[in-house]
């Protein structure tokens, strides 16, 4: 339960460490003995067939789900039942959901400022200024005073990204951030994510956008049946997958 | 169409009564109605149809009774209703006589230690809504410079319930009812009736204004019953009396003259009413008289010939 020794300024190795982690839903064994270490600034893409446990895994990392066995250590803090730890970790981890989950009763700007103001206790002025910066970064500063219901899907997802960024998290988790979008909107969002990736943020992204994986990922992780079947740099992963299951999956996806 | 035609067409008389007041109108467990007010209705039915059972009863609260009569919901109201000027004049009603002379009194809980109404200052009083008693009470207390708290219920049933539950110290109503209501208490000896009578309450059947024929029918059926008592005609001897040579009796029973036809009724209407229901005295004794649970003496309700004020115009 200690932060790993820091030897490189800026790049913290093992900012996320998952060790022998298991999770069950009732009797159903969703995640089986996962082990993964993510260094600061790494960009990981997770893929795998539907129901393989990708979402569950990523949700365990900011404890939206509880794991029952093994360890998850985020930014040096182990995730246990201790609420204080959970709160601390969640402050460092931003999450972007497949279905955006924006707060429909708040404007875009208010959505973005919620966490800075109430969790980080940033003065509102400051929070708003910084929110506007992020909104600019996702290219929708002009929508700041609209309500989420008034935006298109792509715009909504970009707000969701801005909202997560406003917490200034060390780690960003994306759970199929583009799969609820129309093709043209997918591009909008991917562009923003690629830009983000360029800025050196630690990112874990569940996605089937193989183009994105090839462009920005440091590592691609393939999950199936609750296990990590294979992990490799994208080049290797796509050209020379080791496992039979991975090969089969890639065939399907690429044929598409 | 006239009320009489309507009634004949329906085949029965629709009569408004209380929802339950011993001696006046009360259903038994089988829904058979008895009481002096009920008998007044039956007599009218007997006079029209020759059948004392050709009548249906509509139980009404005091509040509802005039509306029901005005609207035509009932053909006559026989619900211990006090004859007052306002009711007679502005409600569009006509009082067809008096079948019981009453007055308002007080039933008190013995525990409050009062034996005259003048000591009731500050009392809580259970009372029925939409009655003259409600108005008299106000007048009486105002005149005496006393205060009271009225607890107003819909039915006399509920006023007793409220009184029994201790919600009020006093229950006020027509004196005739007080005895009956007292008998509904689980311990009747815990309550007593004060000697005071604070109002005149002539109770009688009511009909709608504007149909004089109907008004006359109801009026004269009642008079016929009172006259029958005066003439000694009873339900038991009515058949024998048909042979009487007293012209008054002959006119009453329809063996002579066309008295009924003048009203639009069969000529033997008086005979039918007395034969099937009884004369006024029988009606009284059967329902409220000394031998009933109410045990009320005739008092002023005795015939004028016997020192009372029951006096009916002659059938002539």
């Amino acid at each position: 339960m200690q932060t790993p020794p820091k030897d490189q300024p800026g790049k913290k190795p093992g900012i996320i460490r998952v060790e022998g982690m298991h999770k069950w839903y009732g009797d159903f064994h969703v995640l089986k003995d996962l082990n993964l270490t993510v260094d600061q600034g790494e960009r990981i893409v997770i893929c795998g067939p539907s129901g393989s446990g990708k979402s569950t895994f990523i949700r365990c990392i900011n404890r939206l789900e509880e794991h029952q066995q093994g360890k998850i250590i985020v930014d040096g803090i182990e995730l246990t039942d201790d609420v204080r730890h959970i709160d601390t970790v969640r402050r460092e981890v931003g999450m972007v959901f497949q279905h955006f989950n924006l707060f429909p009763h708040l404007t875009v700007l208010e959505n973005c400022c919620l966490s800075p103001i109430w969790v980080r206790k940033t003065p509102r002025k400051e929070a708003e200024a910084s929110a506007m910066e992020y909104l600019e970064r996702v290219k929708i500063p002009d929508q700041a005073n609209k309500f989420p219901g008034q935006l298109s899907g792509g715009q909504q997802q970009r707000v969701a990204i801005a909202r997560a960024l406003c917490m200034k998290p060390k780690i960003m988790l994306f759970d199929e951030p583009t799969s609820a979008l129309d093709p043209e909107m997918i591009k909008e969002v991917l562009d923003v994510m690629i830009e983000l990736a360029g800025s050196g943020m630690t990112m874990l992204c569940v996605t089937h956008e193989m183009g994105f994986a090839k462009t920005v990922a440091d590592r691609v992780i393939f999950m199936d049946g609750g296990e990590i079947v294979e992990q490799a740099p994208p080049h290797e992963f796509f050209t020379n997958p080791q496992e039979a299951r991975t090969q089969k999956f890639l065939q399907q996806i690429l044929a598409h | 169409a006239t009320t009489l035609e309507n009634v004949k067409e329906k085949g029965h008389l629709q009569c408004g009564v209380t929802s339950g007041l011993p001696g006046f109108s009360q259903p038994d467990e089988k829904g058979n109605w008895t009481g002096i007010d009920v008998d007044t209705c039956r007599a009218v039915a007997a006079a029209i149809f020759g059948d004392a059972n050709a009548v249906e009863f509509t139980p009404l609260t005091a509040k509802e009774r005039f509306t029901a009569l005005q609207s035509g919901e009932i053909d006559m109201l026989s619900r211990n209703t006090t004859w007052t000027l306002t009711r007679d004049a502005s409600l569009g009603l006509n009082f067809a006589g008096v079948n019981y002379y009453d007055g308002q009194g007080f039933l008190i809980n013995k525990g409050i230690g009062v034996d005259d109404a003048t000591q009731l200052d500050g009392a809580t009083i259970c009372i029925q809504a939409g009655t003259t008693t409600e108005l008299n009470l106000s007048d009486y207390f105002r005149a005496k410079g006393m205060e009271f708290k009225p607890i107003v219920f819909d039915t006399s049933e509920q006023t007793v319930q409220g009184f029994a539950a201790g919600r009020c110290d006093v229950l006020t109503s027509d004196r005739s009812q007080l005895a009956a209501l007292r008998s509904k208490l689980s311990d009747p000896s815990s309550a007593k009736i004060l000697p005071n009578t604070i109002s005149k309450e002539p109770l009688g059947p009511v009909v709608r204004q504007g149909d004089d024929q109907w008004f006359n029918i109801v009026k004269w059926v009642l008079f016929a019953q009172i006259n029958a008592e005066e003439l000694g005609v009873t339900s038991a001897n009515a058949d024998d009396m048909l042979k009487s040579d007293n012209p008054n009796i002959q006119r009453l029973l329809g063996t002579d003259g066309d008295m009924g036809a003048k009203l639009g009724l069969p000529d033997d209407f008086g005979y039918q009413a007395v034969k099937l229901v009884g004369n006024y005295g029988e009606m009284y004794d059967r329902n409220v008289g000394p031998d009933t649970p109410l045990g009320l003496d005739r008092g002023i309700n005795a015939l004028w010939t016997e020192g009372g004020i029951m006096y009916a115009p002659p059938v002539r």
Partner: protein
Amino acid sequence: MKKQTIDTRPAGPKPWYDPRVRSLFFQAVAIALVFWGGWILVDNTLSNMESRGISTGFGFLGETAGFGIIMNLVPYDATMSYGRTFWVGLTNTLLVSAMGVVAATILGFIIGVARLSSNWLVAKMALVYIEVIRNIPLLLQIFFWYFAVLSNLPSPRQSVDVGGALFLNNRGLYLPDPVTQEGFGIVWGGILLAIAAVVGIRIWAKKRQLATGQIFPTFKVGVAILVLVPIISYLVAGRPLEWDLPALRGFNFGGGITIIPELAALWIALSLYTASFIAEIVRSGILSVSKGQTEASKALGLPNGLTLRLVVIPQAMRVIIPPLTSQYLNLVKNSSLATAIGYPDLVAVFMGTTLNQTGQAVEVVAITMAVYLTISLLISLFMNIYNRAVAIKER
């Protein structure tokens, strides 16, 4: 195959095949029917009333009523007019409705939340409460609270006595009545000052929070001010308040404030009954906020309390408000059951005794219905305004 020539076809259809014409026709028929029916009703009523010699018009409102009413919020005695009895009845209706709305809302929210409690016992008790209360007729519950409970309360002489100031017996609940003395103005001043201060602090705290992000314990400080300042000013002014204590006078209590059993029974029954419905509304409102919203809020690091306050409740309220409104309307309408136990509400007093004494049923019933209609429309109006204000903005 059909053989058809298009050019000879008439430009427009025959009138009876044209939907527009048809619709006009149906509507004309409908409105004619309604007017015809209405006219028949009115005509019948007028001619019936005329032929029966029933007086008409609203002149009766000015006549002397002559009967007593146990409870009046506006000044009343038997020498006043029937018009006044209307106001007495109306204010009594409004009083019990307002009390019922407040109590039912509080109770309903508590039970609705309890229903979702993680505490098994509490959740089950709430469930039992809801399933029992809302499946039993209200009238029965009113009778129960009135007749069954009242008869088990002591008589005035044996009152339940709480510190000589508060008495409970079968005539009601007696509370001390505060009577202000000279110098009470200072206390009023203190109270106003305290309120002003709290408002000021709230504004200041909000500003400060916006500016610096620090959160000020507004609630606790506010409560302290609201309690302390009036007390201090009361003491400073030399305790200018006397309590008119209820005391046994004759065979009844006099003085103090009385809550009569009729009011209490009606209030309790209405509140408990309505609360069971509100509880279900609250529960479904809270459940209607999707899990994604709570998850998003948690993912933003908001703790449970803030999640509830900033994300769940504002969204749940939109779902809760419309059905809540209709429960309020139901409560107001149900308060008319007062007549069954003798609470002098509008229906009991005005549509009861006044109607009976004056015999003007049509006018009285029309007025009564108009009042309920107005209350309904007003409440709906306000709710619609509110709804529009909080509606989720969409494209």
